[in-house]
């Protein structure tokens, strides 16, 4: 396997600014950044340094001012808008700080959204999502609505939503920021065990230094640039705890 094959995300010279003239803010100032398959990569840095902007660019949600992003060898910026949406739908999963669950849907239905968007029949999509929730320890709450769930439970539903369609890259923005330490720790543990897979990359943006020990790699960002990349301390036991169970490719 050549080094390029193991690359999930590859960013070179990414620049991004918002506004023009007096209002112009340079948010990304030439970011070079790589995330490899099978890795749980952390992106950390002070507030306002551009972490969210960078992952939005990686996910193809924001245009860059200059630079190149490739995801598994695909250049999203060069794709037509509609293809980019479809690429995101099948290859990317997202976990947000605010969970962003639909209040109108149950836990299982929320987790099934990527499948529904892809046109999987509702019954099948919800069944698959419910099975996944069961494996994430929420088997008894699949029919609950978000307002009936705790923050940690809601984030687990969001995690299921990010995993249900077996994406190749999972992007998490501050997944533990709204949770207390113990709950955050539990969610990270679940993320580390359920999401990490040899063929998949997991990119986590966080402030929360208490969960840094889950990382394989930690990239430090400051003022719109990656300043330092260091190995993390994730133990191998955590890596393979549940990943083989949870990532049945035919599911």
């Amino acid at each position, binding site marked *: 396997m050549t080094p390029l094959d193991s690359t999930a995300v590859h960013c070179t010279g990414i620049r991004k600014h918002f506004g023009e003239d007096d209002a112009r803010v340079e948010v990304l100032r030439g970011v070079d950044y790589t995330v490899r398959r099978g890795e749980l990569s952390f992106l950390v840095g002070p507030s306002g340094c551009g972490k*969210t902007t960078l*992952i*939005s660019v990686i*996910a193809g*949600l*924001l245009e860059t001012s200059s630079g190149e992003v490739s995801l598994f060898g695909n250049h999203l910026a060069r794709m037509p808008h*509609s293809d980019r*949406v*479809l690429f*995101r*739908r*099948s290859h*990317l*999963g*997202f976990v*947000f*700080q*605010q969970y*962003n669950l*639909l*209040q*109108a*849907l149950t836990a299982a*239905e929320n987790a099934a*959204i*990527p499948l*529904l*968007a*892809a046109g999987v029949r*509702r019954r099948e999509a919800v069944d698959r999502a419910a099975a996944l929730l069961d494996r994430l320890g929420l088997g008894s709450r699949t029919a609950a609505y978000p307002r009936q769930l705790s923050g940690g439970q809601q984030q687990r539903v969001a995690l299921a*939503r990010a995993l249900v369609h077996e994406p190749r890259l999972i992007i998490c*923005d501050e997944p533990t920021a709204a949770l207390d330490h113990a709950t955050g720790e539990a969610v990270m543990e679940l993320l580390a065990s359920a999401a990490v897979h040899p063929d998949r990359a997991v990119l986590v943006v966080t402030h929360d230094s208490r969960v840094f020990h889950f990382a394989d790699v930690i990239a430090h960002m400051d003022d719109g640039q990656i300043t330092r990349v260091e190995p993390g301390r994730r133990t191998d036991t955590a890596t393979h705890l549940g990943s083989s169970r949870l990532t049945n490719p035919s599911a």
Partner: protein
Amino acid sequence: MNWVGLQMLRNDRAKFAAMIVAVSLAVFLMQNQAAILATMLSMTAAQIRDVQDADLWVTEPEVECFDQVKAMRDIHLLRVRGIAGISWAAPLLKIDAIGHSEGGRLNTVTVLGIDDASLAGLPHRMRVGRADAIRELNTAIIDPGGHELFFPGEPFQAGRSLRIRDRRIRIMGISDIAAPFTGLPMLHTSRSTAAALNLGEQHMTSFILARSAPGSRPEALCQKINALGGLRARTTEQFAADAMWFYGSQGVPMLFMITITIGLIVGAAITGQTFLMFIKENARPLSMLKVVGTTDRQLGTMILLQGTVVLVLGSCFGSGIAAAVCNLIRTQPFLRSLYLPWEIALGTCLALASVTGIALYASYRHVRGLEPAAVFTPAIVTCAA
């Protein structure tokens, strides 16, 4: 995805209900006003259309509707009868007189004198009694509204009488004709009875009713009669249309149209505004859907479906209420002709749907413009416009 959209709509009960109420009320208001307008206009032609045995109406040239009466000379009747292709022609006399009931009620009545020999123009549907009983002198049949006016609250039955110009007219039955635009009681009598009530006047014929012979086109016969000069012949439908146009062009429909337009604008504005608010308040979930790969097309279909559900449910409720109110009003004898044609019911719903469609399109534009990346920020999602 459509199912997700419906769940979102259902979950926002307050707005869902507000939109359905707005659509229902607008549809009800528009249908009710349009039905009254249509009924009023059709009432101006009702006495013309009620005559089904004749298919031609011949009048003095300046007559535009059933309520304009100008005495016709008897020679005209002979001239019409002389036209090839006319199967028969009969006079119809229309006069107004004051009627008194035994109970002391007094009202102007319209008396229609039907040709004694042919009985052409006799009501073809009766509620009580037989129409041809009017052959007997000083008898008449009365319409339900007239009966209610002279004998309020009494059951429909024959045998009562009215005093008109010092004659006692016996009521032999109750006709089932459409309510007249004038709201006056309609008495059908024989022409000789009517003429006796009209004593001292030269007026014996107000209209000539005629029937085309099999094989002759009524329109062609009209042309032949008009060519005689001094007469105006129209088919029943032409005369009915002229009558409706005559009243319709006098401004009253404008007043109804104003109310209908207000209903349309207010209904569409409230529905559209609420829908747009519903979409804007759901900006965050919708952005999330965009992030996870829902296409603009899927979102557009979702909005269309949500809008359709609101419009269809609201239209059904609104039309149901309008129909129920219409049926309630029709129990009044004078308002018995009120009707809600399906064309009006459908037309009002479609009109509201098309105006509300603008808001649906605006909502779609809003969703398209949502910046999906904003979903990462804990703050409120903004629109990239």
